């Protein structure tokens, strides 16, 4: 034993060297430390890059959004501005043309003696006619509404080719009868065309209802309107009303021509108009437009921050050139572009602030996200590196959040503890195995000794086998006795056989009787069938009789009808038919009586048929009963036959049993022979025991080779111990007893 221990010590040293060599080789093949350093630097760079990239992206996105808005705003401003410019420009041109035309118109009017006459006579009808005929002759003068001093429409030309009044013309064409509408302008019956003008109380304003006929289209379609003389006062009243401008927000321009001899009136009307329009359109202030230089009246009207220059043109003296001077001017009211764009600008400002806030938010979130994601990852990588070096004493990672990375760290921690526990367990258990193997080794010697003792035991077993052989001999003797008993049994069976033969004769008599009974029941069935056929014959003939009775009944009925008609005829014949009437009566009586007796016969026949039917039913039931009896009889016969067969079988069986008793005696003989054979087998077992002795001796030789195998196993365990000691393990793991090790193992599982 001492020699073998020394051997193991020298082997331990050798094993340690080989394990170290293997580990070093593996380390060379793995990633070297330079590469690891590179990897760490790259991770840090990536961390920074992700942060800056996200910030950069946010800045770009918000900047582009703002840029789009800026471009949109510029586009809006240019397009809208041009639109405004266009419209104002076209209005200006139109106004100038209109003014020129009207100047001509007024000139011509002043030359017209008829007009002057009509005006002086206040002949409205004539005035209207003159204006109309003039407008018809000069269709290029369009969209002129001529009002007299009471605000009534004197003449107008609704077919305007320019401006939005054309829409009005269309509306009138489509919706209303144009003539009606036109008439309403002169008759003041326009309320039905403008029911929503109810907002203006005419009784309070003192305006004639006719005014609404032109105020309404102006309100909805803008355009150009001429106010002459005192009509301006009335119109001014309307323009003072906020109601009028309630729904005019859709108008971006309104143009009003004022013709008045009173400059002050002209001025105030203009101001009211401007003010109300501004209020109605709300946030959009006015942009004024100088249309033409004022003549004879030089004044600039300022209104709030915006200047309004109202152009004046010299007005011809239409009626009394010396006394009445008319002021004529035009006002163009237009929306301001800057005001339209204002909300867009404000939106842009809000957008800038929002973008800045967004950038800030992204910076904060991206930094925190990067910190959250990358820092734990770096920690994990460090820990993994230490584990790779074999250091299992690394600190546990802190698990802050329940995220994927948190789970990773948690898993790593778990793995380290598990691996640590496993390695220490492995170390301890291999030490324990070592100890056990040594004990086994020492035990082997003892096994060799006990093998020798086993041989002696086997010899004792051989002796006991011989005793067994003797017992078998005794069994042999007993079977011989059984053979004798079987012979006596066979003799008793002979008596039983003779009594069975007597029973067979009686059975034959029963069979003959049952056959006779079946025959008689069958002949009864045939008789019943004949009876049934007779009954059917009766029922058929009674049916025929019923048919005949029906015919009789029918004839009686017919006769009755004939008698009735005969009595009718007789009655019609009056006195001559009286005798015939009596005959008819008698005939009808006869018919009735024959009908009655036919009916009686019918009932009688009915009764007969019923009875026949009843007896037929009874015969039928009797027949079924008979059939059943016959069937039963046949069954009985069958059963008796079967019983006979069975008793025959029984007889046979008895005979066979008798035979078998003989066979049993033969079998007993065979058993005796078998006992003999067993005796021989016992001797063979005895022989086998000798062979077992030899095998035990061979076993002892095998044990020697087991000794050698155990030696090599212990070498391997030594090597395992050395390689496991490469891991750094905490001190707490000291040597443990095998029982403690078992506990740990169970916990691990």
């Amino acid at each position, binding site marked *: 034993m001492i020699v073998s221990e020394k051997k193991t010590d020298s082997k331990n040293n050798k094993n340690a060297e080989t394990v170290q060599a293997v580990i070093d080789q593996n380390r060379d093949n793995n990633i070297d430390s330079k590469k690891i350093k590179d990897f760490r630097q790259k991770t840090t760079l990536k961390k920074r890059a992700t942060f800056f990239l996200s910030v950069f992206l946010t800045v770009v996105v918000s900047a582009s959004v703002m840029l789009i808005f800026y471009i949109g705003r510029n586009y809006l401003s240019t397009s809208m501005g041009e639109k405004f410019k266009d419209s104002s420009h076209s209005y200006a041109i139109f106004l100038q043309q209109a003014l020129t035309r009207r100047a001509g118109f007024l000139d011509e009017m002043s030359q017209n003696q008829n007009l002057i006459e009509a005006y002086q006579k206040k002949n409205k009808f004539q005035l209207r006619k003159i204006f109309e005929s003039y407008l018809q002759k000069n269709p290029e003068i369009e969209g002129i509404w001529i009002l007299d001093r009471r605000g009534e429409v004197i003449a107008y030309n609704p077919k305007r080719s320019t401006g939005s009044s054309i829409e009005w013309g269309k509306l009138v064409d489509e919706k209303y009868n144009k003539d009606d509408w036109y008439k309403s302008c002169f008759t003041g019956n326009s309320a039905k065309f403008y029911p929503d003008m109810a907002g203006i109380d005419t009784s309070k304003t003192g305006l004639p209802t006719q005014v609404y006929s032109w105020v309404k289209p102006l309100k909805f379609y803008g355009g150009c309107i001429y106010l002459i003389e005192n009509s301006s006062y009335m119109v001014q009243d309307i323009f003072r009303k906020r109601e009028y401008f309630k729904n005019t927000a859709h108008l971006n321009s309104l143009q009003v021509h004022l013709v008045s001899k009173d400059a002050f009136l002209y001025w105030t009307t203009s101001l009211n108009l401007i003010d109300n329009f501004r209020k109605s359109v709300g946030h959009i202030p006015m942009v004024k437009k100088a249309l033409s230089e004022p003549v004879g009246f030089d004044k600039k009207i300022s209104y709030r921050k915006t200047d309004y220059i109202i152009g004046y043109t010299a007005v011809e003296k239409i009626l009394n050139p010396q006394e009445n001077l008319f002021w004529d001017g035009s006002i163009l009211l237009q929306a301001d572009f800057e005001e339209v764009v204002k909300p867009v600008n404000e939106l842009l400002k809000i957008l800038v602030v929002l973008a800045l806030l967004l950038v800030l938010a992204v910076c904060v979130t991206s930094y925190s996200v990067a910190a959250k994601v990358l820092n734990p990852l770096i920690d994990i990588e460090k820990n993994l590196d230490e584990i790779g070096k074999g250091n299992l004493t690394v600190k546990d990672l802190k698990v802050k959040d329940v995220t994927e990375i948190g789970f990773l760290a948690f898993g790593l921690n778990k793995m380290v503890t598990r691996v640590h526990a496993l390695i220490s367990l492995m170390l301890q258990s291999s030490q324990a195995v070592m100890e056990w193997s040594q004990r086994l080794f020492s035990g082997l010697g003892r096994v060799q000794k006990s093998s020798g003792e086993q041989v002696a035991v086997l010899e004792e077993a051989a002796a006991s086998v011989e005793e067994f052989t003797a017992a078998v001999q005794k069994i042999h003797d007993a079977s011989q006795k059984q053979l004798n008993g079987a012979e006596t049994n066979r003799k008793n069976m002979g008596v039983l056989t003779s009594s069975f033969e007597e029973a067979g004769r009686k059975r034959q008599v029963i069979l003959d009787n049952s056959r006779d009974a079946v025959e008689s029941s069958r002949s009864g069935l045939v008789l019943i069938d004949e009876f049934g056929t007779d009954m059917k014959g009766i029922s058929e003939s009674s049916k025929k009789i019923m048919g005949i009775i029906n015919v009789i009944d029918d004839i009686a009925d017919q006769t009755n*009808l004939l008698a*009735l*008609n005969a*009595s*009718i005829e007789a*009655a*019609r014949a009056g006195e001559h038919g009286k005798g015939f*009437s009596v005959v008819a*009566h008698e005939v*009808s009586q006869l018919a009735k009586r024959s009908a009655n007796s036919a009916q009686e016969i019918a009932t009688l026949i009915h009764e007969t048929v019923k009875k026949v039917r009843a007896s037929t039913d009874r015969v039928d039931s009797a027949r079924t009963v008979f059939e059943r009896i016959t069937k039963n009889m046949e069954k009985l016969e069958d059963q008796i036959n079967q019983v006979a067969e069975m008793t025959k079988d029984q007889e046979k069986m008895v005979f066979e049993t008798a035979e078998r008793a003989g066979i049993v005696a033969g079998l007993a003989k065979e058993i005796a022979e078998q006992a003999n054979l067993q005796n021989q087998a016992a001797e063979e077992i005895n022989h086998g025991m000798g062979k077992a002795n030899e095998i035990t001796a061979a076993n002892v030789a095998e044990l020697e080779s087991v000794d050698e195998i155990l030696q090599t196993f212990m070498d391997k365990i030594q090597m395992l111990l050395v390689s496991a000691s490469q891991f750094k393990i905490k001190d707490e793991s000291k040597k443990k007893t095998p029982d403690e090790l078992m506990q740990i193992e169970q916990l691990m599982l």
Partner: protein
Amino acid sequence: MNGKNFDLTEGRDQKKIQQAKGSSDIVQIIIFSVGNEDYGLEIEKIQEVIRMRTIKHLPHTPEFILGVMNLRGNIIPVVGLREKFGMPPVDYTEFTRVIVVKHKNKLVGMVVDEVNRVVNVPIDKIDGNPDMVSDTTRALVRGVANIDDQVIILVELDYLLFSVDEIQTDMG
């Protein structure tokens, strides 16, 4: 039969009957039934009694006008007395008869459930002016006969066939 005179002043219906009968003491009456009730009709009014035949229905006619039937080449209108009396219609049986009457010189058929018999009634057994519930019933009843202690209503043809006149005119 008893040779008794009846009162001439007892209303128009009685008068009519008397006029129809002349001075005769005996009236021949055909008894027919519609539903559960028996009715009577003087034999003189009747042309003949026939069995039920195929009736051709006429559109746009009142319910009680069943249609027209062919009587030996003559097309005559047929009135259902059941329908006329406002009873529910039933299937025709072997007893169903058509009483052909001459009304205003035109033949008309009347469908009844059964024609029972001809009876001879003494004229004094007929009450020509019974108390009736309504005018309609009164128009229908020509008189009431007491036959073998059974009250038989004698029907008024003028009432029964009132609506048939128009159809007859159309057909004519």
